[in-house]
């Protein structure tokens, strides 16, 4: 069973979702929680069985799909993808457990389970086509969630979300096909296996074009400035669960793909584009933080803060050293936990008041102390206070990028200031002061169901902030092999200089050998 655990992880939720159609409405919720829980336990088992000392792919599965074109059903996890998979199953569980939606609950849970399949699939896929299929499939349940359970502008938002990301990924598909074609030209046989592609050393000008093609697909997904505008709409209109999954997992697909594809495939191009991308990332960080500060809707604040944090992740990724990339992978998890929790928290208040405007609130700390406390903890995590999960990631990202550029990091570091500004002012508007709105006077504090979803997140946010080692270590080992691979493949002298050479200071096996 452990040999096929990835297949199991991918298709178990889908099968369960199929079965879900025959489950009665009343027991659907319990059924959904049970399935998500089993899936989560399976993913924990995956972690348990994972050997953190091996940097290469583990639990690999392969099955030919279209042998003539080298398309295989190829799965595997390493330290980079392992935790994002666990995060996906974790958030699906939390999301289903804390569902407060009453309209067509059954459909919603089935959709979520399908979504879980696509998410796990994306992160476990090692074949570009399989990856692409899951990548695109993930749009469908999300489209449905926003379009069916969303706010008044849901159709606009969902169509925008779909078309925007779809356009980007089509360009990415072209890139993938070209990549396979180059592989064919170089070796005489077709392959879409990412690990096979890793071995390919492309001429620099090819790398630039391919990098650009992949970049567009990933950047829209992340979303990077100036492709970010679909996100506020999607978040603004999506139901709570949609926002949670979107922020926690779906956005991570973009940054994950950068680490999985762009970096090891195109080391020279990565170095070439490092500074332009870093500048975009910095614009993202500061500009969206400012936009977040101007928002009147608490959910939009969280949405824009997501973009801002994604900027830090991108910056860390393009630090191109172990510290930065490990930090960015870690920050993906951290941001997933924190922004997911923040969206859940916004959902809590939305369920009670059916408004998200901050001006409607004020003085909530008196009425809902527990809610204010949890919100405060998560806000501080989002601001990046040490000993919370976000700090580890942000610190490493900035530390890593500092090696590449002093001035840019200094500018990017403004993140910790502007982040504090919008978050604290939003918190002040919502929780501090006296209760002025009569409707708020008798609000109920967090109930048990909501606690069930939020407490684990608080625990994770603090636990991994204090003791990130169990997660950081496997990430570090896998990232080291990626960086080493990049260094070995790099051709231009600048790339050789920018990407550190790690050989000799550790015994990790490079990806090629592992494969």
């Amino acid at each position, binding site marked *: 069973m452990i040999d096929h655990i990835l297949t199991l992880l991918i298709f178990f939720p889908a099968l369960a979702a199929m079965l879900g159609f025959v489950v009665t409405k009343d027991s659907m919720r319990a059924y959904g929680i049970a399935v998500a829980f089993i899936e989560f336990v399976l993913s924990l088992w995956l972690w348990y069985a994972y050997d953190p000392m091996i940097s290469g792919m583990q639990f690999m599965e392969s099955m030919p799909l279209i042998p003539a074109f080298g398309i295989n059903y190829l799965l595997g996890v390493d330290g980079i993808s392992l935790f994002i998979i666990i995060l996906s199953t974790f958030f699906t569980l939390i999301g289903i457990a804390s569902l407060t939606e009453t309209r067509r609950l059954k459909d919603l849970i089935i959709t979520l389970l399908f979504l879980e399949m696509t998410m796990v699939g994306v992160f476990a896929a090692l074949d570009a086509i399989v990856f692409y299929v899951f990548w695109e499939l993930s749009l469908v349940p999300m489209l449905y969630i926003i379009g069916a359970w969303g706010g008044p502008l849901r159709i606009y938002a969902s169509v925008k979300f779909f078309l925007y990301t779809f356009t980007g990924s089509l360009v990415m598909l072209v890139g993938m096909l070209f990549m396979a074609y180059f592989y064919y030209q170089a070796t005489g046989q077709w392959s879409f296996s990412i690990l096979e592609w890793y071995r390919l050393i492309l001429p620099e000008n090819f790398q630039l074009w391919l990098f650009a093609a992949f970049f567009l697909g990933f950047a829209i997904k992340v979303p990077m400035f100036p492709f970010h505008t679909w996100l506020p709409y999607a978040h603004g209109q999506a139901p709570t669960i949609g926002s949670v999954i979107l922020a926690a997992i779906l956005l991570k697909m973009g940054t994950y793909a950068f680490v999985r594809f762009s970096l090891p495939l195109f080391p020279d191009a990565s170095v070439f584009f490092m500074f332009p991308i870093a500048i975009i990332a910095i614009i993202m960080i500061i500009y969206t933080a400012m936009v977040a500060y101007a928002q009147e809707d608490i959910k939009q604040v969280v949405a824009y803060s997501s973009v801002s944090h994604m900027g830090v992740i991108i910056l860390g990724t393009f630090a191109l050293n*172990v*510290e930065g990339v490990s930090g960015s992978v870690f920050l993906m998890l951290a941001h997933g936990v924190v922004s997911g929790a923040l969206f859940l928290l916004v959902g809590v208040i939305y369920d009670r008041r059916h408004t998200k405007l901050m001006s409607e609130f004020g003085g909530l700390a008196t009425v809902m102390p527990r809610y204010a406390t949890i919100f405060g903890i998560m806000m501080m995590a989002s601001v990046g206070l040490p000993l919370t999960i976000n700090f580890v990631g942000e610190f*490493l990202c900035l530390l890593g990028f500092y090696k590449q550029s002093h001035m840019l990091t200094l500018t990017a570091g403004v993140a910790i200031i502007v982040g504090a500004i919008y978050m604290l002012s939003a918190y002040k508007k919502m929780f501090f002061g006296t209760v002025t709105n009569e409707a708020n006077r008798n609000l109920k504090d967090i109930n048990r169901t909501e606690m069930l979803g939020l407490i684990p997140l608080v625990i994770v946010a603090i636990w991994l902030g204090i003791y*990130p080692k169990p997660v950081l270590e496997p990430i570090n080992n896998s990232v080291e092999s990626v960086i080493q691979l990049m260094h070995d493949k790099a051709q231009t002298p600048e790339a050789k200089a920018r990407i550190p050479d790690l050989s000799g200071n550790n015994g990790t096996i490079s990806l090629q050998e592992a494969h």
Partner: protein
Amino acid sequence: MELYLYVALFAPLVGSLYAALFSASPKSKHVGIVASGLLFTSFVSSAILLSYVMSGHIVHVEMMTWMATGDLYIPFGFVVDQVSVVMMMVVTIVSTVVHIYSIGYMDHDKGFNRFFSWLSAFVFSMMVLVMSDNFAGLFIGWEGVGLCSWGLIGFWYHKESATWAANEAFIMNRIADLGMLIGIFLLYWNTGSLQYDVVFAEIGNLPLVVTTWIGIFLFIGAMGKSAQFPLHTWLADAMEGPTPVSALIHAATMVTAGVYLVVRANPIYDLIPNVGLFIASLGAFVALFAASMALVNRDMKRIIAYSTLSQLGYMFVAAGLGAYWVALFHLMAHAFFKALLFLGAGNVMHAMHDELDPFKMGGLRKVMKGTFVMMTLASVALAGIYPFAGFFSKDLILEVGFVEHHYVIYTVLLLTAGLTAFYSFRLVALIFHGEERYKLFGIHPHEAYKFMLVAMSPLLVLAMIAGAFKMTYYQLVISVLPDTQYHVHSEMTYWIMTIGTQLFVIAAIVYAYKKYSNWNSVPDGTSAMENSFGYKLLSNQYYIPKFYEEVFSKPYLELSRIAWKQIDLKIVDATVDGIANVIYKTGENTRDIQNGNLSTMLRWMVVGLVVLITLALAFTVGYNAVGA
């Protein structure tokens, strides 16, 4: 000894968590008692560690790994050496006193339990800050105290001014923290580690320019925490918090973290005397600058806050001039008498029902004997009168300035010493002497609980006798800090200086008493002095808060609005929608082709045919041209 270290470190945390458990429930006295008890335990452990360290040992433990990736390795490591143990003693003594005092002070507050949770959490963060053996751990404590300061300034969160001040403090500190973070990055990439011992061993090998930058960035961090100009405005506003908080955080401990950082990083600053001189100059400037603002202020707590700021300036002068042990000594002495002063002010506030304007008080000496004595003695110590603590530490700083031939700094500090004495006794005179103006406002003052006064007494004792420990202290810390002696060259000069300073200070005190001890009216803003330019300038804090408001806060908000409404919605998003619209409109327009009219379709078919044929022709011609 490791056990004592852990007890000293984690007892406050346990207290905080214990209090947090009850934070939602109504006031329960046991919370305060347990928290204070645990703090006392921490104090006892620190004292045991002190005796151990005094015998020449150092306790260094590594609890566990925090972050490890690539070459980066950051553990949770703690070191108790001669410097940190001094800080630990200061922190635990003052915080134990403040905890016990708070049981009485916060007696009637609804958030009693919550208060203790925050307060103990603060002490824990402060302990982490001083005990850490690496810069990252220091940064944890650094941010931790910032967080607790935020929570405590905004403790009365229903007050707009309190929450505003809390956010201001946090954000200002964040600005400085960025500098500190950059300093840490520089250290890591140049020395490969963040451990103090490794860094300090390596620092000599670095190019001077790098060291300079490291020093500058770390000092920027210190500037924020210690509220040095231009990041000073938050400290006065932070007085919105409960008074024990002001005593503990904004006088005795947290604000001195910046000084501690410079003292701790003395091997770095020793290499860059230019930066050190800058630090000293800024310190001297802030000392005078803050003192001048305290002269006219009409808010009791703000006056003491400015005095804190001013004293921090003194400390930075000492630290900047390389007299690290002097800076640390003044830090210690200042912690005692300033905390005492604040707690006394707290008593007065309680008695006056949260009235802060000293002009509305007067004559409180009769009803508040204990507080009167304590505050007067604390003010004497602050003014630096022999044989109180302030004399030994503050005069030493003056001597340092003199001996190092920085006469400008020396003059400024001397002048400031006079101002300090003046405003301190202006305050004392206005509060405790003269007519009982509070009667006009129908207030019936009463003395604080007895146990609060008892709790304050250790501070009183320390404020009086701390100077006696000077040599012990000196012997202790020179094993870590550079042993710099400051002797004025001739005996004669020394005595002239000392006595001259004392006389100057006493003259200032007498003047203050004369001017204010018989004050009999509440100024209403009509007197000539209050309308003079100088007065207005000072009472508006040189218009700096207003300047920040106009130049930074408002434009930032405005810019944010523009970024959202104009750029994000009207440019970025509109472009995206525009592209979509172009495609949509194209479809809408070309839809006429598909109008179902077959004859139109036929025509289009012919158009297509013509186009295709043209293309075929063009390509064949082109092909032939190339082929030929």
